[in-house]
């Protein structure tokens, strides 16, 4: 593969997607569950944003709303998603969405072993993504497909074009899935745990590929992950999600080296690299809140040993730490007592960023 510059340049003055006070609910066995509780977010052109959080924190559901891929029992209850001239929350018909999906916003899924149709050749599946949105001749479509295969680093594209998914390894399949996402050169690429199902050496290759593609095509990339190593490796900004809300958002450095929210502290404390030999690894006590019920105050308060009284009563607003860094915690209120982050978090400084972290 040819070498191009790996650096990409985020343009923080140019938001491509703006989410305002988004609420997503699901109907589950007659009960209503609130999966996303009023998220506002600006996604900037060319940046890579990592959304981190534990399973069930709503990070996948949140990004699925950008493509209208919520399950049938889910709906957007409130809020807006502005993308260019559209408000995606007003899209009802499939025809509206097909203009966006695959063409403007594309997605890479978690498990490459099951993401491809086992009965169609890899070439046909990539080609399909291209011809859906572009009226071209068969020969042109094939040429474009071969180009894409080469672009995602699959050797011998001519031969691979005719093969079926079961003839590909996991890493190669993920490259195919990425090629499908890249078929129409989308503006936004959502990667839903793109490396979770892969082994560590392949993970690095796939992240590398995504970074190269981002630089080459000026993509805006959203990574959804619970692997902080991946985050350290690729993200410009980090949004920490807990119980359907973004509790802290900031640049990679700000969130890693100057975290403000107690949940972020807890999350970072769980990094195995911070463990002390001979002692148990840190784990967050308790369980995430029940999303079927209304959440009073700070959702993390019941699991936070140092929670303030106000945390159980009122939901904290966002407090701005720097223009790029804000967190939803009463600790940032001027009236709050001074509670310092756990001292061992300072050790993150000593870890070589992107190196040691990503080997976790």
């Amino acid at each position: 593969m040819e070498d191009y510059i790996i650096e990409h340049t985020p343009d923080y003055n140019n938001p491509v997607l703006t989410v305002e006070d988004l609420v997503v609910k699901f109907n589950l066995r007659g009960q209503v569950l609130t999966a996303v509780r009023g998220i506002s977010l600006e996604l900037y052109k060319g940046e890579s944003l990592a959304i981190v959080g534990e399973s069930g924190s709503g990070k996948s559901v949140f990004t699925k709303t950008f493509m209208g891929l919520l399950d049938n029992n889910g709906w957007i209850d409130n809020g807006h998603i502005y993308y260019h001239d559209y408000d995606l929350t007003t899209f009802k018909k499939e025809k509206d969405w097909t203009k966006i999906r695959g063409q403007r916003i594309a997605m890479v899924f978690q498990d490459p072993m099951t993401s491809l149709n086992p009965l169609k050749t890899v070439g046909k599946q990539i080609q399909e993504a291209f011809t859906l949105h572009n009226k071209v001749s068969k020969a042109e479509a094939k040429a474009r497909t071969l180009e894409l295969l080469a672009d995602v680093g699959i050797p011998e594209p001519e031969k691979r074009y005719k093969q079926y998914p079961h003839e590909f390894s996991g890493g190669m399949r993920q490259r195919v899935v990425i090629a499908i996402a890249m078929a129409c050169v989308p503006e936004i690429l959502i990667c839903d745990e793109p490396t979770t199902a892969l082994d560590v050496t392949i993970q690095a290759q796939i992240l590398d590929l995504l970074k190269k593609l981002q630089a080459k095509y000026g993509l805006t990339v959203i990574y959804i992950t619970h692997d902080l190593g991946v985050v350290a490796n690729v993200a410009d900004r980090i949004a920490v999600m807990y119980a359907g809300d973004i509790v802290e958002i900031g640049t990679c450095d700000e969130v890693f080296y100057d975290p403000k929210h107690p949940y972020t502290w807890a999350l970072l404390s769980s990094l195995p690299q911070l463990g002390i030999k001979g002692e148990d690894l840190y784990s967050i006590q308790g369980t995430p809140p029940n999303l079927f019920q209304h959440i009073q105050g700070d959702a993390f308060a019941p699991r936070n040993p140092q929670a303030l009284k106000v945390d159980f009563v009122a939901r904290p607003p966002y407090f701005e730490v720097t223009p790029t860094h804000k967190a939803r915690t009463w600790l940032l209120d001027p009236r709050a007592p001074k509670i310092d982050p756990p001292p061992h978090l300072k050790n993150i400084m000593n870890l070589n960023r992107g190196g040691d972290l990503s080997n976790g």
Partner: protein
Amino acid sequence: MLRYILGRLGRAMITLFLVLSIVFLLMRLLPVDGYFEGRTDTMSETVKNNILKELGLLDPWYKQLYNFWRKLLLEGDLGKSIVMRKGVPCVDVIWPKAKTSFQFGIIALGIQMLIGYPLGVLMARSKGKFVDTLGNAYVLLINALPAAVYFLAIQLYLSTLLKLPMLFDPLDWKSRILPIICLSLGGIASNAMWMRRYMVDQMNMDYIRLARAKGMTSSQVAFRHVMRNAFIPMAQSLPTSLLFTISGSLYVESLFSIPGMGGLLIQSIQRQDNTMVQAMVLLYSVISVTGLLLGDIMMMICDPRIKLVKKGDSR
């Protein structure tokens, strides 16, 4: 691939040999009274002996078996019916009946597929909605109700309602309609049920999510991705059901007095018509074995993941 098929055929031959020999010997274990057609009391021992001798039944079993295979393999002769239609070659007895059953069966099979599969697709695509509920009700009704009940209802009420003949008449094509409806109902239900089930299974797969994320509409997804994948598990049984249409349906054929194959094997066994039993067992075994082989080849054609190789063959 060719080696695999040849190997399969070889094993099929062994299967056929064993099945036929075992059935042959089992028939010889039946009490001999059956060969005297209920006149056991009035016949003298000499007459009985003569009958048995004429049928070759007094020879030791291995000699009888040897003779049977020699005649079948060297002369292609399955023998003549000894009870049902005495003196008529078995093949001549079976052939016209098989043809009649096949004519009904093939049309019914066609209808089962033409209505059953699209119904299943429709149900899967409207899962949980009205069409789906209606289809499920039909499937449930057909499966829960004994066939005898709705066959009779069709014969009695539908015939008067539509002014169609109640019994089969080879010269009147209209008399074929009701039996074909009877033969089709069950197959439509099961085709629709399985098609729906496999489609729903497929629709929950990850690759369908990816296909939707590509920007395909749900009908594009259903037709380009789901249907073919859902059909594969059903492809294997197609050749077998096609071949077995000649075996006819016992109940439908007796209800409409169709001179078909239904019940012929049972009658032959009951009346101890050894040669007829042997001929029919051979026929049905050949059908089963070929059906399975064709089914496997069909699977291979439909699913690129399946390669037919003999154990130990290099890929």
